């Protein structure tokens, strides 16, 4: 083996933090982008897309839906990639007897 067990775990941990921080950043951009529009560009959000549907209402609903999709992205990644790799590391763990 070219890398030690500890190094592999560290690399996996780093991959998880990259994913977690990236998605957190996406969340911050998404929500505070919406808030910034409310705060600084009210007329844009008042734009009518269809009878009864303003851009503001559509974006508000989208913030909720996209937030949930982001949690789905993370869970799908973690279940398929992270857990599999973690399981491999756990079973080959020299610190566990």
């Amino acid at each position: 083996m070219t890398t030690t067990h500890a190094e592999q775990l560290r690399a996996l941990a780093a991959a998880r933090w990259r994913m977690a921080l990236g998605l957190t950043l996406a969340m911050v951009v998404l929500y505070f982008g919406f808030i910034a529009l409310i705060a600084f560009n009210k007329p844009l959000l008042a734009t009518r897309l269809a009878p009864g549907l303003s851009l503001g209402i559509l974006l508000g609903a989208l913030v909720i839906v996209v937030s949930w999709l982001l949690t789905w992205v993370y869970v799908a990644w973690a279940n398929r990639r992270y857990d599999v790799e973690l399981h491999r590391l756990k079973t080959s763990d020299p610190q566990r007897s």
Partner: protein
Amino acid sequence: MTHLLAAAAPLTSTAIGQPNRVAMVFFFVFIAITMGITWWAARRTKTTEHFYAAGRTVSPGQNGLALAGDYMSAASFLGIAGLVSTTGFDGLIYSTGWLVGWPVVLFLIAEPLRNLGRYTFTDVVAARLQQTPIRIAAAIGTLATVTLYLIAQMVGAGGLIKLMFGISYNQAIVIVGAAMIAYVLFGGMIATTWVQIVKAGLLLGGASILGVLALSHFGMSPTRLFAAAAEKYGDAVLAPGKLVSKPLDTISLGMALMFGTAGLPHILMRFYTVRDARAARTSVFYATGLIGYFYLMTFILGFGAMTLVGPDLIKSVDKGGNMAAPLLAEFLGGTPFLGFIAAVAFATILAVVAGLTLSGAAALSHDLWVSVARKGHADQREQLAVARIASVAMGIVAVLLGITFQGQNVAFMVGLAFAIAASANFPALALSIFWRGCSTAGAATSMIVGTFTTLVLIYFSPTVQVDILKHPSAWFALKNPALLTIPLSFAVGIVVSLLVPDRDAEHRFAQVQRQMHMGAAGE
């Protein structure tokens, strides 16, 4: 519009304020079922593992529902529906804000928390730091958050029951207190979890029926509902308006909501009830979906109440608009449906206060008594006995606070609880998880500074100075201080850690990192 008038006469007066037989029946059925659950749970609550963490046997789906139950308070059901019905789009800002903290909980907190702690989030902060200062500082942050949240819920419950059941405010508070103490004292986390699940089912079901019935007046089309609202009350209801006249206020509240969720002790405690980190992760995914659905529903309920009931009648019953959802129910299904929705709102409050009481009791017994006073040397019997005494104490405190704050405008207290959670609990938690250099002194001062600056700035904010004390202006301009206090707590935590480093803690970082991913040995 003609078929609308044919379907139901407009609501001109309301049964709210008179005792409602249906509400009482539903309420007693709820109490009977939850007490049955408590009796069942009490026989299974033999160790602290059961009492605080339901024996770690809750499934991800159950925990998702329970998280949603713990989180969807009456403030969001009644308050946001009311805000939307009286202001339109502005209220929706709250609907979205109350959801966006959940992805943050999932990405940053849920899994490390499950792998590093046993019963409270303080376990995680204290994992590689010195126990005593961290436990004391975190208990202060926890108790401040829990107490403020409890006051808001208790006062809301007292007002609601007084309206629906025709009993006095104090009697209402005592009934809530007695039921919640019974759940927590006898059934611990097992009973509290199932009370949350029943409540989440009732609330989601009740809101769905209400939403579908409201939409049936508009051909099941949300946009036709919004169009009808705009036709009646002007296009302005579909666009940002007065409520967000100050951009910084909006951003500050947004920060409190986004990062506060990741610092709410009663929410964080739920991650210990599941088997492992993977189950914790899955449960947040379910919870986010359920809560998101619920807040999307508040769009319909709010605009439905605005269009079908009308803001004038809503405000005449309650200035703050809190009775919008019950009034909509009365319009759509008459007094019986009003009674059902009122009972659901009441069950909601009862479940949330039970969760809060349990997390406050855990801070008192697990963090302060067992870890600080007894230095971790307390046997199972003693730990369980202290946990139960602490639960009763928290319950009595909640009742006394509810009575003390009767008639006060406490709507701001939930926002304040989020601000403290975001400024006192979240920064210390994040720093201790992510940063090797985080020291005991740094984390403890961050939590203390976060708690007290938030409390002080709220006192000097327009919310207290202008709205409650009726002073012409306030010394501090922001209604919610999170914009200032979250960065401040992070800065204090980092600077103090650099000034007073903790070599032992740095050495233990690698081991803690390992456990954060691999889980504790033997689990």
